[in-house]
């Protein structure tokens, strides 16, 4: 069976696929438990980090205006040097203009990058430490920070949950043949 890739499953989870892709993915999910689990994991992540589900209100108009202004600045700089006698390539001003444009574009790029990065995981505020298993292992999250122990890609894993606040994951290490028991604890 050919499985949809992670991006398709993520888009399906968020309801962002087109009609045909959605239909095709739904048909696959009806037959494939593994992919259903992947989608469920995406759902869970989206629910626990609601901030991730939406692009924040970016000041797109302001950013666009800044970019336009910088482009105009560059063009204006170009116009300034056009009337000067020496050939264009020999003008010192045009180099200065290019540098100004380049700096302006770089500044816009950096500002945009910073704004876009800011909303990413503000790691859903939990009142107390949370211990849980994930598709890749087990983790403890406290104060927005996470410590996880992963299963080294092993599929057959036995998890155990402890009411005191710990979780274990046990598997046979495929390289060594030894059993590994990972545990995360709330302290």
């Amino acid at each position, binding site marked *: 069976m050919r499985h949809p890739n992670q991006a398709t499953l993520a888009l399906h989870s968020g309801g962002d696929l087109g009609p045909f892709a959605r239909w095709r993915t739904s048909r696959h999910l009806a037959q494939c438990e593994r992919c259903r689990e992947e989608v469920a994991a995406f759902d869970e992540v989206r629910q626990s980090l609601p901030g991730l589900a939406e692009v924040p209100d970016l000041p797109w108009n302001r950013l666009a205006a800044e970019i336009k202004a910088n482009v105009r600045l560059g063009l204006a700089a170009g116009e300034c040097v056009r009337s000067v006698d020496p050939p264009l390539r020999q003008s010192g001003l045009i180099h200065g203009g290019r540098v100004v444009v380049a700096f302006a574009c770089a500044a816009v790029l950096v500002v945009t990058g910073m704004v876009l990065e800011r909303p990413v995981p503000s790691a859903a505020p939990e009142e107390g430490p949370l211990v849980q298993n994930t598709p*890749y292992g087990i983790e*403890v999250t406290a104060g927005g920070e996470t410590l996880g122990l992963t299963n080294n890609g092993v599929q057959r894993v036995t998890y155990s949950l402890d009411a005191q606040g710990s979780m274990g994951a046990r598997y046979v290490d495929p390289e060594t*043949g030894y059993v590994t028991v*990972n545990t995360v604890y709330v302290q």
Partner: protein
Amino acid sequence: MFNNVRLNNAQNRLWLLGLLGASCLLAQDAALPNCSVTVDVPNDAPVALLGISNAPCSATAHGPALMLDLHLSLTLKNTGVNRIHGVTLRVVSQEAALGGVGSVYQPSLNVGPGEAFPVHIDTELMRTAQLAGGPAVQVHLDGVLFQDLTFYGPDRLHSRRIMTAGEMEAQRDRDYLKRLLAEQGLPALRQAMLRIQARQDSVPRLQGRVVRGRTLTTAGVAAAAPEREEKFAFLQFPDSPVEPVQGSLRIAGNEARTPVIDVRNRSGKAVKYVELGWVLTDPAGRDYLAGSMPSTDSNFSLAPGSTARVRQDSTLGFSTGGQPVSIQTMTGFVTQVEFADGKVWVPSRRNLENPFLAKVLAPSIEEERLASLYVRKGIETVVEELKKF
């Protein structure tokens, strides 16, 4: 010539700017420097660190957070005179800052003096800020268990009890398989390996979450269902030194909260730790092993004949295949008892062969290891392995 040089300089500046801009974007995946690891093995420990090999650490910036992905392979050597049967390492990330800690326990070892063995640690860290100057991960030796059940280590994670119980279960299962081999021969041992494999595949599995104190309720499932008090049902093992007497918990949808169980010591020895397993039954009658409930209060003490209360102020949530599992009933049974003298009791195979438990319990650690050995190397290797213990 001069102008050409200037032009080249300008182009270089543009390239530099481009690279800077690109690096801003690529910083999302770039390796960051703070992937350092320290491994703390005391000088007087019965193991020595021979080497660490770590795959390249991947550090990924996610907005204000930083995700580190570390894969370590430690090689430890038995420098003592006893055979080592278990090792536990404590894994912390700038301990003071994080409320959690991890451990990697390698059970069912059989490492003689002078022999070396590997321990793999695969860890992920996500922090909200750039890591401070210290190591990203610290690994400390928490305990070493020897063949004769003696122990070495600081035991900050109760490794002594955990490894002793694990070793007793392993001895129990090895003894059973050795007896099977002696009495019924190779075909019976092969059948036993296949049964373990089948059980490993068929046991229903839950995903779980636990927080202390409050409700989890992310999916709103628990919020939609009214909370009710449910009494525990109990499975009694005739030879258990402790028996569960009564217990209850609060249930709402797929969440169980604040479990309380009264236990009675029916042995002649003082008990300092009791652990009970839970089996969850959903409204459709499907059973799952949900978890365990330890008596972790350091003051817990159960004199012979006395009764005490085991209570956890926590909330557990359960799901399978991404779907919440509603809780209809809970059934408890004793899985471990530690006496005041450090001796540990674990259920016998006869106890675990109870048809209700046999449906939900995964094979033990030793059964899983031996069955894996059988799959990879055949039944003769399993026989040789059993002879080593």
